[in-house]
């Protein structure tokens, strides 16, 4: 019945995508035979080489948001969206400077392990586990949207939710079979596939339709009377919905001024409009800074990335790995904006579409333009390659998330809370069932978010991580005076207030989308009619500053979290762990001194 609606499938695109899926699943099965112990499942036996690990971290990190979302967002909003790839890549520097080395030396499986080990507190472990799951689900939703969008693109007419369900099921199967060791190999492979898939098509395309700078040059800035290079490249007429050139190419454009524009449009009198207009630029500066803080601190706090540092053999390797990750992802991130820029010139019709058919699919759509330039076969092949890259993108990130969330559930909830005396075999079984459970929940959530932009959703996951994990890790590593109560209060209040603020804006966005008759699911339709959501939406229109601070909460939530940690720790200073000096030595002393070994023996029983 569903298949009957599917028309005109390009065989090249379908074949390339299928090959990616088959290789991914095949590698998962192959390595499943090699993953034996619980250690293999959770941290890949802690012995992954720098090259493999750097490729695997990069492969895991470059998600659907990076592959499709950044390009789509650059096309939709212009310059401001460049902060996303830059901060995604540069946030790693923070991780390297302050967190990667100490965390690795401490030697624990997961963030909850660290939380418990640092504060000798089983309760804190439980709190940390809940947060791993929270942030993880926020980050799986955009991956699921990427899956739905791509499958709907490959099989025109296929409903969005089918794509979400199919891809989610395949990856869940893969993770439950191979665990961490399985996905290390798969993700390393997928990094190189993604780089290949984003670079090759754009080089060929640019050599035919014009280069990055030529297309950028065709957009006129607010200080030019005409674009310097309007005649050298082909440009289609922009629809009314597309942002104007001078807004698009300049900072403080549509992304950061959306809230203010909405309230200007709703203002009753010209005087009121002028008052709000005066605030437009300062507010967008505020938005920019808050976004930067969220992305930079959030990178340093994403649980599925952090868990990978434990797979390095030692702290020096952890640092070298981070260096390579930064180079690998930096090279990648130069390219998605190129798609956005060229897409603005050549596929402006995407501005008019919404949901899975909007600008988020520009990476997939652009190569097919070659068909109209007498390169029909080449266009299909290149489009097939970008589809394969998109598959690799959401599959690898989703598997990484699934492993860290499943790890939290199986290792922490089952292995340490529910059944501390369980055998390794029982824990492996628990890992597999936990993967299935979390996979199912992620699919369910993924079907509800078609209306939201991929990249926007990822930014929100980062903001929550920035306000909870980043302060926790940073302060625990560098301040001896932290107590468990201080750490827990700061992390919970910071993270939850960011979560609430973000949910308030997302809810009215999803409801808005439903009101415009978008296929955003039943939940959204219900919300659109709900008086609470209407009330919230009205509030946003009349209070643009509040809306900005809730949409991008990092600028207040991160300081709030750190302040709370300091204040509460000072108040409960008597509860500083007794062996704090030893703990700090383990975090900071060079591994050549051999302190870690001693510590690990004391804390043994972490799942072997």
């Amino acid at each position, binding site marked *: 019945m569903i298949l009957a609606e599917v028309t005109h499938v390009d065989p090249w695109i379908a074949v390339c995508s299928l090959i990616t899926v088959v290789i991914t699943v095949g590698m998962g099965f192959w390595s499943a035979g090699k993953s034996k112990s619980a250690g293999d499942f959770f941290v890949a036996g802690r012995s992954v080489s720098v090259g493999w690990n750097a490729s695997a971290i990069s492969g895991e990190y470059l998600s659907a948001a990076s592959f499709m979302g950044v390009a789509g967002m650059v096309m939709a909003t212009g310059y401001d969206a460049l902060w996303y790839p830059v901060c995604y890549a540069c946030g790693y520097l923070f991780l390297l*400077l302050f967190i990667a080395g100490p965390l690795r030396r401490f030697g624990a499986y997961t963030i909850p392990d660290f939380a418990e080990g640092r504060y000798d507190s089983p309760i804190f472990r439980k709190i940390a586990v809940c947060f791993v799951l929270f942030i993880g689900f926020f980050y799986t939703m955009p991956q699921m949207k990427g899956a739905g969008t791509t499958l709907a693109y490959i099989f025109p007419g296929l409903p969005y939710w089918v794509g979400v369900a199919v891809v989610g099921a395949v990856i869940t199967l893969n993770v439950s079979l191979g665990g961490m060791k399985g996905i290390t190999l798969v993700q390393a492979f997928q990094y190189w596939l993604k780089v290949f898939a984003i670079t090759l098509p754009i080089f060929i395309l640019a050599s035919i339709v014009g280069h990055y700078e030529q297309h950028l040059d065709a957009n006129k800035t607010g200080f030019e009377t005409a674009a310097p290079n309007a005649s050298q490249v082909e440009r289609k007429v922009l629809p009314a919905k597309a942002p104007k050139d001078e807004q698009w190419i300049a900072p403080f454009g549509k992304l950061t001024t959306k809230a203010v524009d909405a309230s200007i449009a709703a203002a009753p009198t010209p005087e009121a409009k002028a008052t709000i207009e005066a605030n437009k630029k300062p507010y967008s500066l505020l938005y920019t800074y808050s976004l930067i803080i969220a992305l930079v601190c959030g990178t340093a706090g994403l649980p599925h990335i952090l868990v990978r540092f434990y797979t390095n053999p030692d702290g020096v390797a952890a640092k070298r790995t981070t260096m390579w990750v930064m180079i690998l992802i930096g090279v990648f991130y130069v390219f998605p904006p190129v798609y956005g820029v060229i897409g603005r010139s050549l596929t402006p019709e995407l501005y008019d579409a919404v949901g899975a058919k909007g600008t988020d699919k520009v990476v997939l759509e652009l190569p097919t333009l070659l068909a109209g330039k007498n390169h029909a076969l080449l266009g299909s092949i290149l489009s097939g390659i970008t589809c394969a890259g998109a598959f690799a993108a959401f599959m690898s990130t989703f598997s990484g998330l699934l492993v860290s969330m499943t790890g939290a559930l199986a290792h922490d909830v089952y292995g340490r809370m529910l059944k501390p005396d369980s055998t390794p075999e029982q824990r492996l079984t628990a890992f597999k069932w936990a993967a299935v459970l979390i996979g199912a929940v992620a699919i369910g959530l993924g079907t509800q978010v078609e209306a939201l932009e991929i990249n926007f959703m990822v930014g929100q996951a980062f903001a929550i991580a920035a306000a909870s994990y980043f302060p926790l890790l940073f302060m625990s590593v560098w301040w001896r005076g932290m107590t468990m109560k201080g750490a827990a209060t700061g992390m919970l209040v910071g993270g939850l207030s960011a979560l609430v603020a973000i949910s308030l804006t997302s809810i009215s966005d999803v409801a808005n989308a439903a009101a415009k008759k978008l296929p955003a699911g039943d939940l959204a339709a219900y919300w659109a009619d709900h008086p609470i959501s209407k009330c919230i939406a009205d509030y946003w229109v009349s209070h643009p500053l509040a809306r900005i601070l809730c949409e991008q909460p990092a600028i207040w939530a991160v300081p709030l979290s750190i302040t709370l940690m300091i204040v509460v720790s000072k108040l409960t200073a008597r509860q500083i762990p007794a062996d704090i000096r030893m703990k700090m030595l383990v975090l900071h002393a060079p591994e050549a001194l051999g302190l870690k070994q001693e510590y690990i023996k004391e804390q043994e029983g972490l799942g072997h």
Partner: protein
Amino acid sequence: MSSDPINTDGFLARLMRDQLKLSITCALFFVTALIALPLLNYFQPEWMAQRVAGFTLTWLILGVLFFPFVWIISFIFIKKSIALENAEAAAAKDSQKK
């Protein structure tokens, strides 16, 4: 353990101070750039919008040049931090022998 010169507050304090100093110095370069770029965009929009090889200046900085800038910082940090660790380890072992 108590007679071990490594397990003293003095050693730990020095260790953390040296490491934090290195990390913060490196972070300052990076944070300065992150703060300065939006400010330049805000106060000098016309200058930042000038064309450099087809890009606007600000687009070129953010979309291309920022990445190598961060690589340089991290390369320097890793070199210095590994050297620092080796020096610390050697010093600690020396004092243990005495």
